[in-house]
């Protein structure tokens, strides 16, 4: 706060707080929880693979099926509680509404075309329609992962939900596909951060310089 007050009016316009504290914390806790869920989930998958391949042991945690299951069913609480904090915060403070909306097919199409031509603007703190769709999409994917995971964990107690998602074997497939799509998002997301590294600083410290002021902050 003191730092923010010390800067002049002109500078404070450039050095803006992009991500609120709650968003930054929930983001990084989510990264950790997702790492645990994926690494243990791959080990669980390996015990009875849905397809004709297994994940490399080195990329999994738990050591054996029982260990991986312990990790998976411990980390799920972190993922769900942290995700719940994020969603409640996002709705309560209108963070979702002000950052992810409006999002129309027209806007998305326009920004998609611009992104493909490499002309999309990456304005700090303002998401273009492609980003809005991607971030809303991954929230949706995580909800599908949690719902399908619960249905596999408790296919009798949550049998209505399991039936809606294709029955026990159908849900296994759904959870796998949602995991793959989530990792596609993560890959693109990380590539974008590598291309625009200052976005990483904003998620770490909450601040980000505009393009013009980039040098001054180093």
């Amino acid at each position: 706060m003191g730092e923010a007050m010390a800067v002049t009016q002109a500078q404070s316009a450039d050095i803006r707080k992009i991500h609120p504290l709650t968003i930054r914390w929930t983001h990084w806790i989510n990264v950790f929880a997702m790492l645990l869920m994926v690494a243990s989930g791959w080990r669980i998958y390996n015990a009875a693979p849905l397809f004709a391949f297994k994940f490399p042991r080195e990329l999994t945690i738990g050591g054996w099926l029982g260990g991986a299951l312990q990790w998976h069913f411990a980390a799920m609480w972190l993922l769900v509680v942290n995700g719940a904090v994020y969603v409640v915060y996002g709705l309560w403070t209108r963070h979702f509404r002000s950052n992810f909306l409006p999002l129309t097919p027209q806007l998305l199409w326009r920004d998609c075309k611009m992104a493909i031509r490499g002309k999309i603007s990456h304005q700090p703190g303002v998401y273009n329609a492609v980003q809005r769709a991607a971030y809303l999409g991954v929230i949706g994917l995580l909800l599908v992962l949690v719902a399908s995971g619960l249905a596999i964990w408790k296919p009798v107690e949550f049998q209505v939900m399991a039936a809606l998602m294709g029955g026990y074997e159908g849900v296994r497939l759904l959870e796998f596909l949602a995991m793959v799509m989530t990792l596609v998002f993560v890959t693109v997301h990380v590539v974008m951060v590598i291309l625009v590294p200052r976005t990483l600083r904003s998620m770490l410290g909450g601040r980000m310089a505009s393009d013009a002021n980039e040098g001054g902050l180093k």
Partner: protein
Amino acid sequence: MSDLKGVKLDRKLVAPSREIVSLERRLFLNKGLSLGALTMLTGCDVTDADSVQKVLWSMSRWNDAVQAAIFDPDKLAPTYPESAITQPFPFNAFYSESAAPRLDASTYRLEVGGLVREKSSWTLDQLYALPQSSQITRHICVEGWSAIGKWTGASFKTFLQHVGADLSAKYVGFKCADNYYTSIDMPTALHPQTQMTFKFADQILPVRYGFPLKLRIPTKLGFKNPKHIVAIFVTNENPGGYWEDQGYNWFSGS
């Protein structure tokens, strides 16, 4: 249809993985938890295996409590038509099929003990005289695969009432002829679909599926469905289980 396809694929891959599981378990027990991959990925030091293990076991106990709270004693596991039955139904145990114990029907006795009014031993003929019913339900393995089968036998609740079991006790434990052991919570023991199984697919239970007595619990994972049962006891001390003591979640309800 998709079920059958999935199981066919799974079984091919399940057989070799069983050996790997036991090998992994030994490595796991000998060397503790290897977390190299995680440490590299996150940069966090989570190599303190002892404290990590304590947290994981506590979370598993917490998940026992959550599952007990979620458990609805009246909610039935889905049942299926005969056409949905998986054929052939997979064999599964911690040993190979040829190592399954062969009990003699004429000398077999089921010991019933613990917190029951009538500590007794039952012959097969006495057990077969109990009123029986059939169910076609899905067996879900802790490994993830599932298979649908038809089981016939007596209501376990009726049996427990018959021997005067203390139905307010917490656990029912099982000892098996193959040295397997497991235990379940009393609410699950009293669930209407929990069955003392004598038949599989309308035939006397074959050796590979647990002759002469198996407990079929469609609200639990497969490893909580003991086979070749020789003793049943009611207790307030959690008897644990063969896999449960190694790290599988104790409640493991579906």
